[in-house]
């Protein structure tokens, strides 16, 4: 099961892309580990994660067709 990660703001500078396909690893916590292993600079960044547009927590389980958004602090206005 592949899921889509989308990145915003300064996180796109680290990942070098605004989206990424990965194999679903179960929970958000497990996903974070995999992604941070690939992009270690993410570990030093502040961000929140939203699953299907809802801010989410580490123990949430990812399901098929979920869109996982990685968002640094907002800076609109």
């Amino acid at each position: 099961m592949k899921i889509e990660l989308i990145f915003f703001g300064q996180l796109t500078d680290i990942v070098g892309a605004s989206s990424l396909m990965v194999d679903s690893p179960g929970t958000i916590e497990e996903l974070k580990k995999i992604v941070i292993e690939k992009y270690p600079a993410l570990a030093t960044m502040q961000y929140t994660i939203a699953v299907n547009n809802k801010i989410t927590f580490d123990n949430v389980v990812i399901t098929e067709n979920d869109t996982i958004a990685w968002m640094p602090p907002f800076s609109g206005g």
Partner: protein
Amino acid sequence: MEKKLKNIFMDGAIAPVFIADSIAKHATKTDIGGHSIFLGQVRADQIAGKAIAAIEYTSNQEMVLEKMHAIREDIFQKYPLTCMHVYHSLGTVKAGEICLFVFTSAKHRKAAIDACSECVERIKAELPIWGKELFDNDGYQWKVNS
């Protein structure tokens, strides 16, 4: 998801004539006694000898519209408003141009003023929008809201 989400995005800067049209449209609503408007304008801040020439805005668009819908519902529940309009730029807005337009109207001024300022705070804190500050001589930095 079946709720009707109002679009708030504008391509590039928000023109003063657009604001004027928006105001003029309220002349038929003769139960309105006060309008409160907030406008965000891009500043040409100097950072280590470089000036900000423009901000390039991007967003998690669908999430912005959902969140803005919720904010709108909260604010209408809290304040006796006649109407509320919100516009935020996407893409490039040059220094001196308008990037945010919040417009509340009510029978009495207090509701319009309080709702407008609460709405601005919530927009800045809760909408997933990001500003990339572009320097006039190349390079950029990511905007940080205070």
